[in-house]
Structures are given as C-alpha cells and as structure tokens.
C-alpha cells in the first residue's frame, strides 16, 4: 500500500506552500498570469490530486477518479496556450511538483531506502503522466487554433467578383487543395445562382503551381458550373504553367483558356452579346476605362 495518498492528505498545505515558493522563484511568468490566479490554480490542482489519489489508483490517470483533474489540467493548458506560454512552461507547472512532494516523502520515510525508492518511483510516474497529459492538451489546443485560422483564411481567400451583367470573376490566390476547392466551388455556384451569371472567369494568376491534382480540382469546378448552366473560362495562365500542364499530360478538354483576365473578359462579353467599341471621345466613364482592353 502506497503512502502517497495519506501523505498528500496530511501535508497538502505544506506541499502547496513549498510548491508555490519553488514555482515563484523559477518558472512563473508574472507577465502572463497574476499571482492570485496562479496560486488558485496550484491549490486547486493539489486538492484535486489529493482527492483522486484517495481512490488508491496511482498509475492510470485515465481512470474515472482522475476525471476531474484531467478536466482541470485541460482547462489550464488550453488557457495557457492562448495566453502565450511555451510548452515547457506549461508542462513545468506539473513537473515542478516533484521536488516539494519528494522532500515530504523523504521526511516521512526516513531510513528505509527501499520503500523510499519505490514510493519515489510511483510519484515520479504519476506526475510524469499528468505532465505529459498537460503537454498533449497544450499542443492539441494550439493545433485547434491553427485549424481555426486556416478555416478563416479559406473563407477570406475566395472572393467572387461581378465584372459585368452576367459575368463573374474568381481570382484565385494560393495553392488549391481539396478543402479549398470545395469552398471555391460552393461560393462560385452560389454566386452564379444569385447573380444569374452565364460566364465565370477563373483567374489563376495567383496560383503558384498547377499539378495534376490542382488541374483536376479546376476541371471539377468548371464542370460543376457548367452543370448549372454557366460557362467557365480559365485565365491567367503563366507560360511556365502552360508548359507544366502539357508536360503533365493534363487534358483540359473543351474548357476555354486565356492568357490574361483581359482576354477572358472580352470573350465573356462576346458570349453575353455585349460589345465594346473604342471611340474617339469617351462616351461614359465605364467605357473609357474599358477602351484600353
């Protein structure tokens, strides 16, 4: 029978005081967390640990008895991830408990080296696991933040612009992956319905590389738009990209492609039955602008 539960019950306050003293001198980041909040976290953690070990379970932190302390640690590390703590600092919060706890253990088991060794090992194991759990949740919450930012970026990076009555433009910037294609497709089709457009120009000037996968995503988008009754023109194909497409053997089928957005726009106007004339005097500002095409 381990002495740890009993020891923790009897010496909780002493250990807490030692622990806080140790952390204050070492790892506490007074710029990120207030002293009061920090002390509160420490005492709450110790209290929950005390309650958990009373169950006699000292090795498996996934046991039901450790449910509350796991939740608490998850909260602490999530909030610390947001506050900007480093992983080391967050994990140290738990690991630094080893020293004050160990010295209490040594005091109470004096003279019996074997027992002291085995108890220390148990304690080390338990705290290691809790520490690793903290680090893991910390990383997980960081990853969640990254995923969220990625999603935000995804939405930001797919504007669909109305160029003319019945003509939409979709300037793509950045690499096209499956998730992004999905968003692009949905936004484009939605706008096609809303604006009743018959031509959509997909401009890939801002797409750094076109490989077979990206080409396939493009073809999918064009096909979906065609099913809705809107024709797509792909524009902004750089010389290198044209070469890559041919070298890769990608077949763009009967999709209209143009080198520049301006060329694509002219084709789109033609298809919608609009024509632009270069006049001597600019009749209206909008035509004056387009006369440079």
């Amino acid at each position, binding site marked *: 029978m381990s002495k740890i539960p009993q020891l923790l019950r009897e010496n909780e306050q002493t250990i807490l005081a030692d622990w806080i003293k140790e952390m204050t001198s070492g790892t506490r980041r007074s710029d990120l967390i207030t002293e009061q909040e920090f002390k509160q976290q420490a005492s709450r953690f110790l209290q929950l640990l005390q309650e958990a070990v009373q169950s006699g379970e000292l090795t498996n932190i996934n046991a039901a008895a450790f449910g509350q302390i796991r939740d608490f640690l998850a909260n602490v590390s999530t909030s610390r991830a947001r506050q900007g703590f480093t992983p080391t600092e967050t994990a140290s919060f738990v690991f630094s408990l080893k020293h004050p706890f160990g010295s209490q253990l040594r005091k109470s088991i004096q003279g019996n080296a074997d027992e002291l060794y085995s108890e220390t090992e148990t304690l080390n194991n338990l705290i290691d696991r809790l520490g690793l759990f903290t680090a893991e949740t910390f990383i997980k919450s960081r990853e969640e933040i990254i995923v969220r930012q990625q999603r935000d970026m995804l939405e930001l990076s797919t504007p669909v612009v109305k160029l003319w009555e019945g003509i939409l433009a979709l300037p793509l910037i950045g690499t096209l992956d499956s998730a992004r294609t999905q968003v692009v497709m949905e936004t484009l089709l939605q706008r096609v319905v809303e604006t009743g457009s018959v031509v959509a120009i997909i401009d890939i000037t801002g797409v750094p590389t076109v490989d077979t996968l990206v080409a396939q995503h493009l073809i999918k988008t064009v096909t*979906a738009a065609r099913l809705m009754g809107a024709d797509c023109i792909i524009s902004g194909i750089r010389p290198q990209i044209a070469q890559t497409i041919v070298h890769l053997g990608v077949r763009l089928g009967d999709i209209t492609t143009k080198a520049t957005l301006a060329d694509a726009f002219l084709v789109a106007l033609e298809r919608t039955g609009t024509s632009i004339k270069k006049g001597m005097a600019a009749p209206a500002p909008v035509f004056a602008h387009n006369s440079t095409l």
Partner: protein
Amino acid sequence: MERIPILQMGEFLLVTIQVDMHDRLALTLQDDLTAKIVAVSARGVLIDISSLEIVDSFIGRMLANIAAMSRILDAATVVVGMKPAVAITLVELGLSLTGVRTALNMEKGMELLRAARGTGIGYTAY
C-alpha cells in the same frame, strides 16, 4: 401511379420535376418522354430540376440517358435550374453529363432551345 407530367409548348416539351425522383419514377419518365417526343415530333426538351434536392448516380445517369435518347430522336435537351449542391454531388460522382446542355433557369433554357432550333442541331452554348 405517380407520374411526372410532360407539357407541350409548340414544338418543345416541358418536364418539371417537382418531387424527389426515385428510380421507378425516373424509368417511367424515360418511357413517357421518348414516346411523347415521337408522338408530337418535338424538336426540343426542357427539363427543369430546380426542385430536385437529392441526386444519386442512378438519377444522374438517367438525365444523361434521357438527353442522349432525345438527341437520337432529333430533339435537343436542356437541363435547367440545377442547384449548386446537386451540381457538386454530380461532379463528385464523376458524372459531368457530357453532351447535355444546361442553363441557369427556364428563361435561359428556352433561349438556348430556340437558338439551337434556329441554327440547326449542334452544340451552341449561347
């Protein structure tokens, strides 16, 4: 038995699918439509699927088949009003309905049919 009505408008036929298509219904439509095209010697078929929310590979293939059959019977087919979600599903299923003309709505679809009628048979998108 449930049937999808086929309306005649001059030399064009109008099919409005307003219920969820199940397989039997699709087969009945295929029978009815080919019979009607021959009976009234229709020159164009307009299929409105704006109320269609769910498509599977079978219905997708049916649409392609109907279009192919009409073409053989010398009637151009235009599918109009496909919803974005339906279009995405069809593309993901690998059905691009090659050879089927599409339009955003009924009005644009009719324009297409008239244009096709005017210029003879052939693929003219606008």
